[in-house]
C-alpha cells in the first residue's frame, strides 16, 4: 500500500459529508430522507475507516450498517405510514431542554479536548493494511492472543436473543 494521497482533502471532504448527513438526519421531516442521509453518513464514515487503516471495519460498516441495518430501517418506515407523521409537529416539547443538555455536553467535550490536547501526541505510522483482517481475526479467535473469544461468543448470544426478541415483538400471532 502506497502512502495515502491528499489526506487532509479527503478527511475534510468526508467529515463535511458526515456532518451534513448528521444534521439532515436530525432535521428532516420525512423519515426516508433521514434514512438516506444516515446512509450517506455511514458510507462517509466507512471512507474514514479506510483512511485510518481499518479496512475490515470499513467493510463491515458497509455490509452490515449500510447494507443490513439501514435496509431494515427503510423496510419498517415503509411498513408504517409516514404521510401523517410528516404533517405533525416534529419536535417534542422539551426540545429546548434537549438542546441545552446537548450544549452542556458539547461544552464538556470542548473543555476536555482543550485541556487534554497535549495528551494525544501523534504516533506516526506507515504500515501496510495487508495484515489488518488477519490481525483482527487473530485477536478475535487466534490461538495466541484470542483474548476476545469469550466476548465474541457473548455477542453472538446477544444477536440470537435479539433475533428471537424481534420476531416475538413484531409477529402478530406467534
Amino acid at each position, binding site marked *: 500500500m502506497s502512502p495515502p494521497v491528499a489526506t*487532509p482533502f479527503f*478527511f475534510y471532504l468526508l467529515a463535511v459529508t458526515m456532518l451534513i448527513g448528521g444534521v439532515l438526519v436530525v432535521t428532516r421531516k420525512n423519515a426516508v430522507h433521514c434514512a438516506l442521509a444516515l446512509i450517506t*453518513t455511514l458510507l462517509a464514515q466507512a471512507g474514514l475507516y479506510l483512511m485510518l487503516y481499518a479496512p475490515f471495519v470499513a467493510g463491515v460498516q458497509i455490509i452490515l450498517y449500510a447494507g443490513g441495518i439501514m435496509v431494515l430501517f427503510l423496510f419498517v418506515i415503509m411498513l408504517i405510514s*409516514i404521510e401523517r407523521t410528516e404533517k405533525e409537529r416534529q419536535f417534542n416539547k422539551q426540545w429546548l431542554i434537549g438542546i441545552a*443538555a446537548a450544549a452542556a455536553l458539547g461544552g464538556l467535550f470542548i473543555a476536555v479536548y482543550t485541556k487534554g*490536547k497535549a495528551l494525544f501526541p501523534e504516533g506516526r505510522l506507515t504500515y501496510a493494511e495487508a495484515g489488518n483482517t488477519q490481525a483482527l481475526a487473530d485477536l478475535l479467535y487466534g490461538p495466541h492472543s484470542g483474548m476476545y473469544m469469550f466476548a465474541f461468543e457473548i455477542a453472538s448470544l*446477544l444477536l440470537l436473543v435479539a433475533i428471537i*426478541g424481534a420476531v416475538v415483538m*413484531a409477529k402478530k400471532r406467534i
Partner: protein
Amino acid sequence: MEAMLHISTLHYLVLSAALFLLGVIGVLTRRNVVIVLMSIELILNAVNLNLVAFSRYWQGIHGPTALHGQVFAIFVITDAAAEAAVGLGILIAFFRNKETVNVDEVNLLKW
C-alpha cells in the same frame, strides 16, 4: 494552518464529538421513534469513529497488531444490529397498538 492540514487523532475526536452531539440532539428532541433510533445509530457511529481513531493511535505506539479499538468497533456494530432489530420490533408492536410513532405518546404502561 499547519494544525489544520496535518490530520491527527484529535481531528477525528472532534468530528466524532460533533457527530455524537448531533445524535444526542436528535434523541432528545425528535418525536418520531424511527428518527430517534437513527439518532442512536449516529451516536454509536460517533463512538466507533473514536474507537478506530484511538486504535490507530495505539498502533503507532504498540505496533500493527494493537487493534483492540477495531475489535471493539466490530462489537459495537454487532450491538447496533441487535439494537436496531429489537428497537424496530418494539416499534412495530407499538405502532400496531397505538397507531402512532411518536415517542411522547408512549405514556401508558399498558393499554
